[in-house]
């Protein structure tokens, strides 16, 4: 047997590898897990390596830029120039450190001010699939990250955790075409759904054509998707135009999705109020005259006076609702309480204010 194995060692190794794969495949199918085992193991094995590579890269880049390159320059320049360059380098280095410290400070301040319980995580990689927009974070189930939780930055929301590994997690970014977020418009407080498009801009769906939406208006999370806590900045309206059923609105996400470094994972989300509405626009100085009334059905009652739009936005109505409102107004104008009346009291006049249609010219008899 040993001789046999020794003789066909390569073949044996190949067979063992294939068998192992097949057994793992079988186990994977039968265990019915959402995430592939190989992926879990792979990610778990690669994450420390990625972290080391990332750190190493930073070290090498730092060494190269901070020392090696300067040493070459020192040889070619005067001592004074060398001192100046070294000082410049030191300055730059301090600035970088200050920038990083600022970012972390902003993050820490935001983390303290937000009512949700969050966890700081660093982005350690991006997905390889060109059709999906995902990033890897350096925090996983070991740090308390759970699938389905939101990932945010002080600038805006980033995405949701799609899969969790022991030391890392995978985040589906809001710009992915399968991402969607329940949102609310800042001014009108109309609810809609922000959807990723696969590129840097996002789409805002289900905003009725009647709603007034303009570029620059902010869009916040509504909390209705049960992922993102309410009140977080989602994006800003870039363009809006009427569509077939709803408006076609393009959004610029608030977070800088292509330059993510440190993010916050919302371990326990708490909804918060939306920021106050923008101040009201000042009254216009000049107004156009009202348009002439449209021709109406002659059987209809006198038209109701023009009214401002309802503050809560568009409400669908039937003709019955409109007529009831009109009859109520007619009753109020005459001091009439419907269904009541003393003996001798005057019945209501439902033709009050109604003007008969103009008399048509009589047809001339044909000769």
């Amino acid at each position, binding site marked *: *047997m040993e001789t046999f194995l020794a003789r066909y060692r390569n073949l044996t190794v190949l067979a063992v590898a294939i*068998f192992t794969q*097949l*057994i793992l495949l*079988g186990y994977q199918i039968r265990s019915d897990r959402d995430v592939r085992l190989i992926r879990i193991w792979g990610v778990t094995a690669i994450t420390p390596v990625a972290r080391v590579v990332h750190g190493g890269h930073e070290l090498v880049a730092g060494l190269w830029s901070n020392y090696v390159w300067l040493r070459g320059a020192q040889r070619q320049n005067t001592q004074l120039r060398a001192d100046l360059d070294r000082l410049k380098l030191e300055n730059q280095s301090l600035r970088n450190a200050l920038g990083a410290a600022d970012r972390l400070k902003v993050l820490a301040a935001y983390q303290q001010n937000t009512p949700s319980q969050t966890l700081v995580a660093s982005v350690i990689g991006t997905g390889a699939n060109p059709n999906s927009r995902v990033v890897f974070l350096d925090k996983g189930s070991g740090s308390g990250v759970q699938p*389905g939780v939101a990932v945010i930055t002080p600038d805006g929301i980033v995405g*949701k955790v*799609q899969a969790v590994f022991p030391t890392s997690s995978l985040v*589906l970014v809001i710009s992915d*075409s*399968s*991402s*969607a*977020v*329940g*949102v609310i418009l800042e001014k009108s407080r109309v*609810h809609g*759904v922000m*959807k990723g498009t696969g590129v840097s801009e996002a789409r805002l*769906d*289900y905003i009725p054509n009647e709603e007034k939406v303009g570029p620059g208006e902010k869009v916040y999370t*509504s909390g*209705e*998707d*049960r*992922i993102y806590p309410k009140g977080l900045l989602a994006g800003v309206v870039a363009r809006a135009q009427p569509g077939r*059923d709803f408006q076609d609105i393009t959004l610029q996400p608030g977070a800088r999705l292509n330059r993510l470094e440190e993010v916050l994972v919302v371990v326990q989300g708490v909804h918060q109020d939306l920021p106050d509405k923008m101040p009201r626009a000042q009254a216009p100085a000049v107004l156009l005259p009202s348009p002439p009334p449209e021709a109406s059905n*002659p*059987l209809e*009652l006198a038209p109701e006076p023009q009214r401002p739009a309802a503050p809560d936005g568009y409400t*669908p*109505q*039937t*003709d*019955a*609702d409109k*007529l*009831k409102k009109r*009859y*109520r107004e007619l*009753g109020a104008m005459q001091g009439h309480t*419907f*269904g*009541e*009346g*003393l*003996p*001798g*009291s*005057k*019945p*209501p*006049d*439902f*033709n009050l204010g*109604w003007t*008969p*249609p103009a*008399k*048509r010219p009589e047809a001339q008899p044909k000769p």
Partner: protein
Amino acid sequence: MATPGSPLDREKSKLAQARIAVLQYLCLGVFLYLVSGFWQLQVQSPDLYMEQAERNRVKWLPLLAPRGKILDRDGRLLADNHSTFSVILSRTNYDPSHLRVIADGLNLPYEEIESRLRRSRNMPEYEALVIKNGLTQAEVAFVEAHHSEFPELELIRSQRRLYPADGFASHLIGYVGEVSEAELNQPEFAMYEPGAVVGKAGIERQYNDILSGVDGRRQVVVDSRGKERGVIGIKDAKPGRSIRLTIDLDLQTAAELAMEGKNGAVVALDPRNGEVLALVSTPNYDPNKFAGRIRAADWKELISNPDHPLLNRAIQAQLAPGSTFKPFVALAGLESEAIDENFTVHCGGGATFYGRYFKCHVKSGHGAVSLHRGIAQSCDVYFYNVGNRTGIDKIAEYAEAAGLGRRTGIDLPHEEEGTMPSTKWKLRNFRQKWYAGETISVAIGQGAVTVTPIQLAVAYGGVLQGGVWNKPHLVPYDEMLELRPAFHAEAPRVYPISLVNEGKIASGLWAVVNEGGTGVRARIPGYDVLGKTGSAQVASAELAKARKTEKELKDNAWFMGAVPRDNPEIVVVALFERGEHGMLAAPIVRDVLKAYLDKKIRRQWTERQEPPAAPQPVVVGAVR
């Protein structure tokens, strides 16, 4: 060290061979296991897996048909649709472990999703199951945001029913809801799948087959993430047909406003053809709450409300008509010649019949009372005498001829029939003899007699048409012929009534409103309005006296009004529960009649383009 060939070596060699053998068998076992798996996949049932893979690739998405609109006689909208979303669950690839989270996100009880899946077992598996209609904005956001986790969920566009606000005409229009398990077993709903939306009450239920459309479907190709990548085929949905009703929105509105804050009903109809012009029942309910799925708390509130808002009082309230019954007693007396026009009674505030004293509603009495004055003043003593002379069976004959105590056949579900007692009725139901003393109470619309508001309106209309009763209906006959070509309009019911006697009754009804009778509050200057008040006791006089302040023991108020006096075009009946006196129901009817008359002026202006001639009051006592 052991030498080769020693027993120790042999032992070691055996052990090694045994280990190798175990390893070999283990390898063989694993190999056979894998081969059996491949055999199952590739040979035994490849079609099954191929089909499953295909199902993951191809999806059937329903296209829900919009329901037909409900319009008034002038084409104005009573019930419309507005765009909304439904969510469907793909039964081919759903994961049972997701259902609890899905139920939570969609605000559905988990058990309900389970029961829906159970009920849909007989449906072809490729047909997706609608698990919720009329999604809220939050539910839409939930489904959209969890598309990657729950690919089995899909949003589809649908139409949600839009009804007038505040329960306007709710009992008339009815409401829609998801077909129940019990309904699915009925032949009427056999063609529906679980989750389908059907009419549950009112016109929505009565004409569900016309208003319902036929759903279509789309076959689409989806990618591994469930995202739609292309359309294979579309079967368009067939929208439901709209229905135009006989209801006049102007009259309905006036009646709705007049009944605000009161419990009761209003029915207005055209006695010349049976077209119902307005039908109101209060308290009402908001049918919009039923349009998606009614919340358990709302449903509980509706069914535990002591005022029973779901009861359509216009066709289901079976109550004593009180004095509104008196004209039918008079008609029976005149037709059977038990009395004549000159029959006069002295009312001293009450009279004794069969050893029992019966009071009149005017304690001091009316003095000498004729038929004309008896109706105008609604003198109880006069009608005790007329009833006593006429007898219960003659009263029952004419009341039944007028349609009291029997269903009118109006095209609304669950109409009640009321009761018209007679000697036969008592024998049949109680196996007891009728006592003459019981007739005295029936003669003033008390005792065993009960009617519904629609019955009373139809009955008066027929009498005032000279004995011709048209079946009340809510869809015009010409519209019905278009909707159902096999439809046959029912011929009016005719019972011979002397026009002279009918004129005497009409004269009394005219005096009720225009000669200082009990219904002066219904007077409309310039028009000859007919009317009759009715105050029906709901408790014995003694009990009412003892608890006079309690609202629930106040009399029910009725009023019937009609215009014009000759060949009335409209009859309106109002029931004001616990209204105390019929005269307080008269202004309700006046508002509806005024809305009719004012609209008639607008119509005449439009048609003739000249002002209508002012109506001339008819001379008192004139008969046709």
